[in-house]
């Protein structure tokens, strides 16, 4: 297909010079082309009409306008000086006949608004722009997510949180690559083996759930190699989450799909793939 020498899109280039024309009514139209901040060319059309207004002023007032400035203003050019004269914010004088003119604005609310003007509100649970306490997902996913990292360092079976924490203190024998003594060595070997297994993280378990309950729930999908239920150290109650390792990835996949979102002990379970500790 032959390309024409002048593209239709380029034709306006010739009109870059501002155009001015005046019509019969005395309205002057000025058309300009300029490039905006985005690099796009924009057409600006302005229509102006000049009108000569005659104003009758007092002779004395007119004479005073011609007085030369004196004192601190001596020698300054006519017109308001921005150093001494400014225009303030627009103020509405609302006249009312009722005698009720008190426009009280909730002061506390205003103060709070001013305080938070520059702060971004971020929910710790769902990262939405509302307070954590007002989060609609607080009950379904909030508590567990918040609880998980807190309890993770206590149990070495919670692999997810351990490696993420860059600033948190980790004991030397638990650090990655530190395997000086035999016990730690065997432990890390154990962990490696475990990491290879397909593992599900089950959250939002009720407080009185046990390992037996969890394995009862999941064993129908396939062979379970290990169940770990996080328990509170003092009370021995379930902390609300557990890890279930399957031998077969397919089984784990089916279990995840089936149980996720299911009700259990009046709570809706959440099942997801456990993050690898590696």
């Amino acid at each position, binding site marked *: 297909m032959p390309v024409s020498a002048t593209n239709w899109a380029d034709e306006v280039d010739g009109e870059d010079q501002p155009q001015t024309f005046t019509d019969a009514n005395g309205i002057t139209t000025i058309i300009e082309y300029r490039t905006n901040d985005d690099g796009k060319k924009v057409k600006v059309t302005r229509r102006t009409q000049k009108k000569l207004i005659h104003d009758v002023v*007092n002779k*004395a*007032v007119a004479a*005073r*306008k011609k*007085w*030369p*400035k*004196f*004192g*601190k*203003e*001596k020698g300054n050019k*006519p*017109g*308001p*000086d921005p*150093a*001494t*004269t*400014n*225009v*303030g*914010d*627009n*103020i*509405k*004088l*609302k*006249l*009312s*006949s009722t*005698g009720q*003119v008190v*426009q009280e*604005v909730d*002061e506390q609310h205003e103060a709070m608004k001013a305080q938070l003007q520059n702060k971004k509100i971020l929910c710790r649970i769902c990262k939405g722009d509302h307070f954590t306490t007002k989060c609609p997902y607080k009950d379904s996913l909030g508590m567990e997510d918040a609880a998980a990292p807190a309890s993770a360092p206590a149990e070495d079976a919670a692999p997810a949180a351990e490696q993420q924490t860059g600033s948190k203190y980790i004991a030397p024998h638990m650090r990655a690559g530190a395997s000086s003594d035999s016990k730690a060595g065997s432990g890390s070997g154990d962990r490696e083996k475990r990491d290879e297994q397909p593992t599900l993280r089950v959250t939002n378990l009720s407080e009185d759930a046990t390992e037996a309950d969890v394995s009862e729930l999941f064993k129908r999908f396939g062979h379970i190699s290990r169940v770990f239920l996080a328990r509170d150290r003092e009370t021995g109650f379930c902390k609300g989450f557990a890890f279930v390792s399957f031998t077969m990835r397919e089984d784990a996949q089916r279990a995840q799909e089936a149980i996720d979102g299911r009700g259990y002990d009046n709570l809706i379970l959440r099942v997801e793939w456990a993050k690898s500790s590696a």
Partner: protein
Amino acid sequence: MRPILLQGHERSLTQIKYNREGDLLFSVSKDHVVNAWFSHNGERLGTYEGHIGAVWTVDVNSTSTLLVSGSADNTAKIWDVSNGKCLKSWEFNTAVRRVQFSEDDKMVLIVTEPRMGFPATLQIFNVENGLTEPISSEPLYNFLPEGPKITVAAWSALNRYIIAGRENGSVVLIDAESGSIYSTNKIHELTITDLQMSADRTYFITSSKDKSAKVVETESLEVLKTYSTDTPLNSAAIMPKVQEFVVVGGGQEAMDVTRTSSRQGKFECRFWHKILEEEVGRVRGHFGPINTIAIHPDGRSFASGGEDGYVRVHHFDDDFFTFKFQI
């Protein structure tokens, strides 16, 4: 409406005044300077320099040729309005609290404070042809009014009386020739902070620290109207045209301001219906108490000066002129 902010002063305003045509606005403050402004755009015409103390009061004559100012440096000065030259300086024993030109521009009324054993004086000077001839240093009259301190004073029609407001809240009618007190009426509970005459001088408005402003008949000193607010008032003015309003302003005492927010301070100009004694509107903006209010002689704009050092000139919007009070 968008107010024009005049920042010609470094300290709190004490008085502002329009000239007769309203094209010029004079402001004085505690920073020793007198400023002259064009009221329509806020341009500063010039400054009158020479005082070495806080300037308490200012007035301009009806032809806008002479300006008188009274200061805490124990002087009152006459200035040439057009070029800022000081034409006369009177020395007193104490600070000058109030000055005013008489209705015919021939005389100036000066009120001095009682202090350090000196009694309060009410002096009248002749300033006729003051622009061309030297002004006498001797007063025409020097009255020593008895009783509580006089805070404000004004001439009545035809220079017959001098109306004065006292620290104890009473107003007195003083004969302008003999200095004798005709009548007294205690209309306020606390000190009178401002007294402004109506256009025809048959009545005047007073503002007081007792949170009220009152319209008083000149001859009888009878209270005609009362406007009660919730804050001490520093100034009150009568709108001469357009609307039957009075404007009052004040706010919490300056010494208490830092302890509260500006909203609680009630630093607003309040518009009251002059006859029906109903509040009709408020104009906020100052972040300190309002010390002085002046209304343009044609009623199209008004100005307020505050403890915050600003003068705010407000030109009314169109709806102000069409407003009708519904009863």
